[in-house]
């Protein structure tokens, strides 16, 4: 009963909105707003034919690899910039400059430079995702208690060990916050990157259908991206609980 209630509390709005959409669009003849029933029919058709699944696999692989690069570079560089003062002073203007560039604007440029195939798409996703991770990592490192820094010095913790056992875990809550911000950016850029010079992928599916006036497919693709994004975020929240157990629990204790 209470589990059912919980589910109801969480999902009533979604259900209501879907129903509203369903009935409001039921008799639509507008080519841009096909009935939801038609959209879902298209979605199921293209999923079961395997076409969308193949596209999705292609897109998500790009997203995964792009994110992976962003995480490695963002954390690695962030730890160094955050911890090493001269490096921070030297690189700060460039970081601020680069983060202000609208990433989507660079998509045609990167793809134009690096050509077709998944490579440039992965670079684009990595470039867009690296900034929230980098900036949050730097903040996380800067936020480590000065007393902990002094402890490390007095107890002569070697620099390598200090990075691995003190700076990295200390900055981890912020690093995860950065990845959380990077996720939706990555998903957006994943789609946008396939609007140029692509012959497969979810973004291509959306663009191709809309330019051939298959609006049901456009909507189906958009819904699919939304749903997949939602589940990726959900999975991420589950994953981050594990290494950050101390953080959530100590925060709960402090309250």
């Amino acid at each position: 009963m209470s589990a059912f209630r919980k589910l109801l509390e969480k999902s009533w709005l979604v259900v209501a909105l879907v129903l509203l959409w369903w009935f409001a669009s039921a008799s639509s003849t507008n080519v841009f707003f096909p009935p939801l029933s038609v959209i879902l029919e298209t979605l199921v058709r293209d999923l079961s034919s395997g076409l969308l699944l193949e596209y999705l696999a292609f897109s998500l692989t790009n997203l995964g690899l792009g994110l992976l690069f962003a995480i490695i570079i963002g954390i690695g560089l962030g730890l160094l910039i955050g911890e090493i003062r001269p490096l921070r002073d030297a690189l700060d203007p460039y970081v601020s400059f680069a983060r202000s560039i609208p990433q989507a604007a660079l998509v045609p440029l990167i793809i134009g430079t690096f050509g077709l195939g998944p490579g440039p798409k992965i670079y684009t996703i990595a470039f867009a995702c690296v900034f929230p991770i980098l900036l949050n990592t730097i903040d996380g490192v800067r936020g480590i208690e000065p007393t902990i820094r002094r402890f490390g010095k007095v107890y002569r913790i070697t620099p390598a060990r200090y990075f691995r056992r003190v700076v990295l875990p200390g900055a981890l809550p912020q690093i995860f916050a950065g990845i959380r911000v990077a996720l939706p950016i990555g998903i957006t850029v994943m789609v946008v990157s396939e609007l140029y010079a692509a012959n497969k992928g979810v973004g291509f599916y959306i663009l191709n259908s809309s330019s051939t006036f298959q609006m049901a497919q456009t909507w189906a693709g958009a819904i699919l991206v939304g749903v997949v994004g939602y589940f990726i975020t959900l999975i991420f929240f589950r994953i981050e609980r594990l290494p950050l157990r101390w953080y959530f629990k100590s925060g709960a204790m402090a309250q």
Partner: protein
Amino acid sequence: MNTEIIANTTEVRAPATHTAVRVDHVSMAFGEGEQTNRVLADLNLTVDQGEFISIVGPSGVGKTTLLRIFSGLIQPTEGHVYVENERIRQPHPSIGVIFQDYSRSLLPWMTTIDNVAFPLEGRFGKKERRERAEAALESVGLGGQGGKYPWEMSGGMQQRVAIARGLAYEAKILLMDEPFASVDAQTRFSLEDLVSDLQRRLNLTVILVTHDIDEALYLSDRVVVLAGKPASVVTTIDTDFGDHRDQASTKADPRFGEARTRILELLGH
């Protein structure tokens, strides 16, 4: 020939072991030009091995700065610092620091025993580290509690963990910066007695910075009074309450009251 050399070396080294920490004509200033803030001026102090000294003085006088100079965290503008007769320019392995904000000096992502064992990484294997950490926790009365996280413990317990960390590290000289300032009075008394007991048992040298004159008198062999701007040592007071002290009778000793009055007068009260 060989024995002669050995004999010679011991002779040279013998007096050396008696001095734990020495600062020699130390001055400290922060900033430059007109902004210069002179904190310490021509300060001299020698602390013997096994001695318990307290540094008292008005707040902002430079007690913590002096402690950081002892610890090798900062370098004095002028003068030299010696630890076990070695001139230091960085933290010395014999020195352990117990910080005032205990909750911020322990690593919240490590369990208590891992916190205590952490500075031993690279020096001992995993098993030995744990054994040493457990022994240290035992000696501060936290045996068997190593599995807890620091934030699951009370303030007093966390400060015990910080002390255990210094002991496991085999610090011979403990520098304590207002270590009991943020715990309640009861906890404070039991921590004072713990430190006093450990100091005697392990023959540690302790340098305690405190604003609490009673605490300084109760614990130390010698109380160093800092005053002035820039500050220097205005006087040192030997306490002679013996090795067996307790919170009630020692503090009721008339000599205790006299010493307290003297220090208060020196500090302009």
